[in-house]
């Protein structure tokens, strides 16, 4: 089968890969790199559980083909720790009860991280707007919003 050479920086590590021309970034991360934190819940771009950061901006990895992101930097939930410590968003999601089944959690956290990257002190309305791109069936969102607020406070 024809393959394409790509070099991507994943969680601060430069990785050279041969991928299928139609391979999604989600598949590359999950199947080739064993980074299974990003989840597939729709593969149509409509749920957000596959969200990762592409050069710091949240994207739906199920909609992106790996060959398209040659040379880019990708951050996944597995790369969110800083100095071996959990990211404040991760801490806040745990403490505030923003996690139930957890299937949406990676995507929610990465979406929130993208928001905090561009807006250090988002208002409640901005948080709601940002995470409303993602679906959670368990929590009713309330505690997710609280967790993002808490993390942004801690990071200030």
């Amino acid at each position, binding site marked *: 089968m024809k393959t394409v050479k790509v070099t991507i920086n994943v969680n601060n590590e430069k990785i050279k890969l041969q991928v299928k021309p139609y391979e999604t970034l989600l598949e590359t991360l999950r199947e080739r790199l064993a980074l299974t934190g990003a989840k597939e*819940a729709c593969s*149509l771009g409509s749920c957000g559980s596959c969200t990762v950061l592409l050069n710091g901006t949240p994207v739906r990895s199920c909609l992106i083909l790996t060959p398209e992101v040659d040379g880019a930097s990708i951050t996944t939930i597995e790369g969110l720790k800083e100095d071996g410590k959990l990211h404040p968003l991760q801490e806040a999601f745990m403490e505030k*009860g923003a996690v*139930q*089944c*957890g*299937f949406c959690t990676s995507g929610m956290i990465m979406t929130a991280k993208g928001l905090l990257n561009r807006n250090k002190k988002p208002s409640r309305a901005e948080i709601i*707007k940002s995470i409303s791109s993602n679906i959670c*069936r368990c*929590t009713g969102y309330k505690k997710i919003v609280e967790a993002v607020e808490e993390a942004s406070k801690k990071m200030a």
Partner: protein
Amino acid sequence: MDNLKVVGKKIPKIDAPLKATGAALYIQDVKIPGMLHGKILYSQYPHARIIKLDTSKAEKLPGVRAVVTAKDMPPNFRIGIMKDNPPLKSGKVLSIRDEIAAVAATTPEIAEEALSLIEVEYEELPGIFDPLEAMKEGAMLIHEEAKSNILKMPWRLICGDVEKAKQESAYIVEDTFSTQWVTHCCLGTSGCVAHFDMHNNLTMYSNTQIPSLAQNDFVEALNAFGLKNRRVRIIQAVIGGGFGSKLDTYAYEYIAILLALKTRKPVKIIFTREEEFFATSPRQCTITKISHGCDKDGRLTFRDVEMVLDNGAYTSWGATTPSVMMLPISSLYKVPNVRYIAKCVYTNNTYCQAMRGYGNPQATFAIESSLDQLAEKAGIDPLELRRINANEPGEITPQRFKITSCGMKECIEEVYKRLNWKEKRGKDNGRGVGMASLIHVGGGARVYKSDGCGTIIKMDDFGKVDVFTGASDIGQGSDTVIAQIVAEVIGIPIEDVNVINNDTDICPWDVGVHASRTTFVAGNAALGAARKIREQILEAAGKILDEDPADLDIKDGMVFSTKNKEKSTPLGKALRKIHYTLGGKMLMAEYFYDPANENFDKEFKGNLSVSYAYGAHGVEVEVDRETGKVKILNYVAAHDVGKAINPLLLEGQIYGGGLQGIGYALGEKMVYQNGRLMNGNFLDYKIPTAKDVPPIQPVIVETDEKDGPFGAKGIGEPGLVPTAPAIANAIYDAIGVRIKDLPITPEKILAALKAKDK
């Protein structure tokens, strides 16, 4: 109870670190060396005869390891509670989700491609998609061997004398209400990996809610395959949402087993989102004719309910939801005379299953909408009518439920106060308030032969505890609740408790995570085992410290004498002493808790649950008369939970359940046209997002249930039971129109306003 250290505290879920770091492994993440990927071919028609099925091209595709059809399944093997569902169909297909062939291949893509090479020819047949049509005399039979499309299930409850009560009532109302199909939308789709060892013992990686019953089902399946006396082991991956969807075993699981058997390799089947929509079983739609009466003082005299449920083409637990609908129908408020007759009807639609609430949301929508109508007719404030008829502790209801703790009145008062009911009601200004209450099982539910759960506790050499429980955590947090209970009883920090819940080879039996039973039943099982192990520890430590065990206590992992504080030892040290001695021992304890509830008798009477959960929801809405849009301004969700073991997780159940209820009330609907699902994706089937969250105030009412662990009752399902009628009632108060058919869409509101103006 006052100096509780762990129970009653807002403790984060013990599995949250795994999930917040992306390390939790779901069924999607399970990989086994040599694993193949299975895919299923579904029917193209909701009702058709299969004229030709040719798999030869698919078999020749490189990478394909097996192609199976009905002829590879044991001939008379059927699944479903009425044993009416062959996992692979031949001859005729009865619904659009009928499985007719499946493939195992080295990659999912090859499996997919192989499906497209299977040649099928159909002769399309006319279908029946309306349960009322299907019930008619002479209607085409969905299952030719059955005499009627009405399932042979005698759902019929009679308490007192409804006819007589009708004669004697001062006010009577009657109306018809209907509800739609909605689906669970677990974010983690369905899936499994089936794996046989060299002796034909089966290991099933699964996300089931019923490991023990699934084990039983698969043992039966292996028998049917001629593999007698084999072992089945269920290992659950982390479960990406349940809500009742995984309460049964499904065709895809038997197909995976068949493919694994044929190929001698592990076979994984994971549903796509599209499959999750059309090939899993939704909450059934219902048509409910209900009438209610009261005397001149507003005391309820009777409730008379007739219901038709669209069962779809095969049976699953959905067909038994009338057994739980009986609970609110007979016992929500004090009603002396009750009649309930329900018919589940086969159609060529998708077949239905349990979904959070198990029929209760549909029944409560009809009851609570009708009660508002009755209040209006009797000229009584609707909240007042509910006060007058509220359930009370000590009551024995007409269906013979023994009400122990009951905080219904307190919940209603919370709604009254927090909604500012008196001020806000009857303003006729586009804003209005409404309320509805709920009753649900809160102390297990004996729907199976056993309602039990087992727990084993093992102490290690370091003062830490392994707890093996039968109870499955589907995200609600039962592991955490169990760990809290064990930590509290023994006297150790929660960090020292490890809960293992996912392997039938090592965990004891449990009937499954359903009926809001886990905190109550698994909690009591954990409590029993923890008490036993504590006794053993104190006994052994008494010898080491030369003290009477009765004078010993454990706190923060230290065993000490309450008389002489000098005498103490770290728990781990004591355990090592007990272990590493001539004739030493390891401390272990087990406990099986099966609540003292009753199966229904032939008349569907009996004390189904040891205790009952209550609640009341109140809503303030604003309705835009131009657009028909409903905005929720305030939402009060008051719940009698007995005791909040973990208020953080409890609120999570109320917020999460409440929002599912709001979706049910105001938007979610599976649109089926002639047996085909028209909106099977997240863009067209809209579940609420963060933008749709109204201000919800959870109110926790504690009534200290005597039989509950630390006084607790169940809360898994109640959060969405009264939501839809509370909203419908508020809309009526706001604009004077009543929507009797869920979901309440802007189009329906506008149409109703138009009809009213005429």
